[in-house]
């Protein structure tokens, strides 16, 4: 999929987006009956502010806009009429002599002659002058034209792709059909894995080029991941670039489902296969890029996966979603624990999982609103936290994840998204752009994992952190939403008490160390119990959810289990 835009319409869209934000900001109400509506208004405004406006500004600031303007002005002067032209994001270079020569040479060849030439070129990934990439672009353009025109030619190229990396390289230089690029990647991954030597690195690079080209079509990325043999190869190939693999996995597992909700079933089939691999040949861990991509994608699966975690041991984790008519057996509880354990061998993936759990917890609490003391859905948080705790203790990763679930890290992700499942459980809706979330999560996770100080690790693990997070989220809910207080029996609490609670909440969230955080939590809990008994009762009601008490059990130190 090309990235292109009309500059004049982009400016108009930008203006309209800003006007929309202003109009949404102006919508206010103190009526409790309007709380849900205002929540929807706020989500829409946040989406526009966090994603539309930055993307529009990025496009407006790009040099392509400047180039277009000078050309367009000349065209307007010449024609006297307003014009509107398409620009590709990557403007084609002026053709070089080499480009023209290669283009002319291939134009005269039949399909059979091109295939013969490819066979002759052998496994040389770049048979032209390496300084002149326009020759590869010319070849790629010609190949793409032929693939578009003739399915049988395309099939022959796919068959040759494992032995001729130039075919995969070409997918990064021209607009090939996504299905073809996906088939090329699958064919290359089906071949014997290459784990060493110059040829192996060249072939890994070629696969990466094709994977990068396919990022524009997340559905095709999911098709590749859905191929069991290709998935196994991706999950264990150490020569693949970690970032490209993470982006590819996130595109398939997260973005594809965000764009088409029915793909959730395909996404879960991939997770089921990864569960099987994690309990088999990938028991020792998986490629970090795959682990991070899956971990980051969990932000979209957690609200359907959490309800499926019901009983431990050999009981199945059965994912059911009625909206998309999905029923998938992911594996037993112990097998799913092993999947998350395999993911957790990578520190940034640990952090991403912790942040996913933290964000889900906040989203569930906020979504429950005045129903929070009925605990609908909150028990899922506690059970899922327990599963992650089990997996983390096995991998001695609990402390990393626990620290990552803290709100400061979670806020870096800007909120969580889920896949079009209509429920009152999450207020965050779909307010994030997948690529923005994935790249920010990956960068934040890597940065955070690099600066972790062992002395700053929490004394308590992920389940206990979740206990605190539920408490904090429940308090923040009523502090931020006065309209809910009456229905929760808190209408009589004085304004200065709310101010004091808010002040103590801020102290917890701004804690600079884990020890300071624990101390500030203690101050907050004491104030509520001693000074604001109504709020203390509310918090006790929230905490009276199935499984939450277990989260406060002291876990053994790392390695003791």
């Amino acid at each position, binding site marked *: *999929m*090309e*990235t*292109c*835009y*009309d500059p004049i*319409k*982009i400016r*108009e*869209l930008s203006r*309209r*987006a800003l*006007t*929309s*934000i202003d*109009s*949404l900001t*102006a*919508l206010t*109400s103190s*009526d409790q*009956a*309007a709380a*849900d*509506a205002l*929540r*929807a*208004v706020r*989500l*829409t*405004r946040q*989406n*526009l502010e966090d*994603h*539309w406006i930055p*993307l529009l500004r990025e*496009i407006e600031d790009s040099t392509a806009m400047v180039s277009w303007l000078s050309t367009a002005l000349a065209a307007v002067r010449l024609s006297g009429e307003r014009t509107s032209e398409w620009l590709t*994001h990557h403007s084609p270079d002026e053709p070089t002599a080499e480009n023209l020569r290669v283009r002319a040479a291939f134009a005269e060849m039949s399909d059979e002659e091109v295939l013969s030439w490819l066979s002759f070129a052998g496994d040389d990934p770049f048979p032209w002058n390496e300084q002149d990439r326009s020759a590869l672009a010319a070849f790629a353009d010609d190949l793409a034209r032929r693939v578009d025109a003739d399915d049988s030619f395309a099939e022959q190229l796919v068959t040759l792709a494992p032995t001729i990396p130039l075919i995969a390289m070409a997918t990064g230089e021209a607009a090939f059909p996504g299905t073809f690029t996906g088939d090329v990647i699958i064919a290359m991954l089906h071949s014997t894995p290459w784990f060493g030597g110059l040829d192996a690195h060249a072939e890994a690079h070629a696969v990466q080029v094709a994977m990068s080209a396919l*990022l*524009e*079509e*997340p559905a095709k990325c999911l098709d590749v991941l859905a191929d069991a043999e290709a998935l196994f190869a991706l999950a264990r190939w150490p020569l693949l670039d970690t970032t490209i693999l993470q982006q590819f996995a996130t595109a398939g597992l997260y*973005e594809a489902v*965000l*764009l088409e909700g029915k793909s959730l079933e395909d996404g879960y089939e991939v997770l089921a296969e990864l569960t099987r691999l994690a309990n088999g040949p990938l028991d020792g861990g998986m490629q970090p890029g795959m682990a991070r991509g899956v971990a980051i994608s969990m932000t979209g699966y957690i609200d359907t996966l959490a309800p499926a975690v019901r009983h431990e041991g050999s009981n199945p984790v059965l994912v059911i979603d009625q909206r998309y008519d999905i029923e998938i057996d992911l594996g037993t509880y112990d097998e799913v624990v092993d999947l998350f354990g395999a993911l957790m061998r990578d520190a940034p993936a640990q952090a991403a999982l912790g942040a996913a759990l933290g964000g889900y917890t906040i989203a569930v609490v906020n979504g429950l609103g005045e129903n929070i003391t009925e605990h609908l859905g909150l028990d899922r948080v506690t059970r899922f936290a327990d599963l992650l705790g089990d997996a983390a203790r096995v991998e001695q990763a609990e402390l990393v994840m626990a620290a990552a679930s803290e709100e400061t890290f979670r806020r870096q992700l800007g909120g969580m*998204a889920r896949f*079009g499942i209509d429920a009152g459980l999450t207020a965050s*809706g*779909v*307010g*994030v*752009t*997948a*690529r923005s979330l994935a790249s920010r999560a990956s960068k934040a996770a890597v940065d955070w994992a690099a600066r972790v100080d062992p002395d700053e690790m929490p004394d308590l693990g992920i389940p206990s952190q979740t206990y605190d997070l539920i408490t904090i989220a429940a308090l923040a809910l009523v502090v931020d939403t006065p309209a809910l207080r009456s229905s929760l029996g808190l209408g009589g609490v004085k304004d200065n008490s709310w101010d004091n609670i808010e002040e103590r909440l801020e102290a917890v969230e701004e804690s600079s160390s884990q020890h300071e955080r624990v101390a500030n939590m203690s101050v907050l809990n004491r104030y509520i119990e001693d000074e604001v008994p109504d709020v203390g009762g509310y918090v006790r009601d929230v905490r009276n959810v199935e499984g939450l008490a277990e989260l406060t059990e002291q876990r053994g130190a790392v390695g003791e289990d």
Partner: protein
Amino acid sequence: MNIIQATRLRERARHLRGLATAMEASPAMNLDHHAGDDTWRGRKPSLCRAILAANLHQLHAAAEDLRWQAYLFEQQALEIEIMVRRSIVLAG
């Protein structure tokens, strides 16, 4: 129950209906009309459109919920007014 409560309910109903109308009149509700393939095309624009579509669906549903709640308030107000009138008649 008294007439003041009925009046308050009707005020709330008017307010909710007004809020629903204001939501639907927001320029955000037809922002998607100006964000089609002829304006911008690519993966990021597609994702932006998909998320906005979900947001607009939520906004429309929320506006309908506001109108339904307003209707319920009006029905409650009517019942109160009827009861007040009956009590006046009986007292008279």
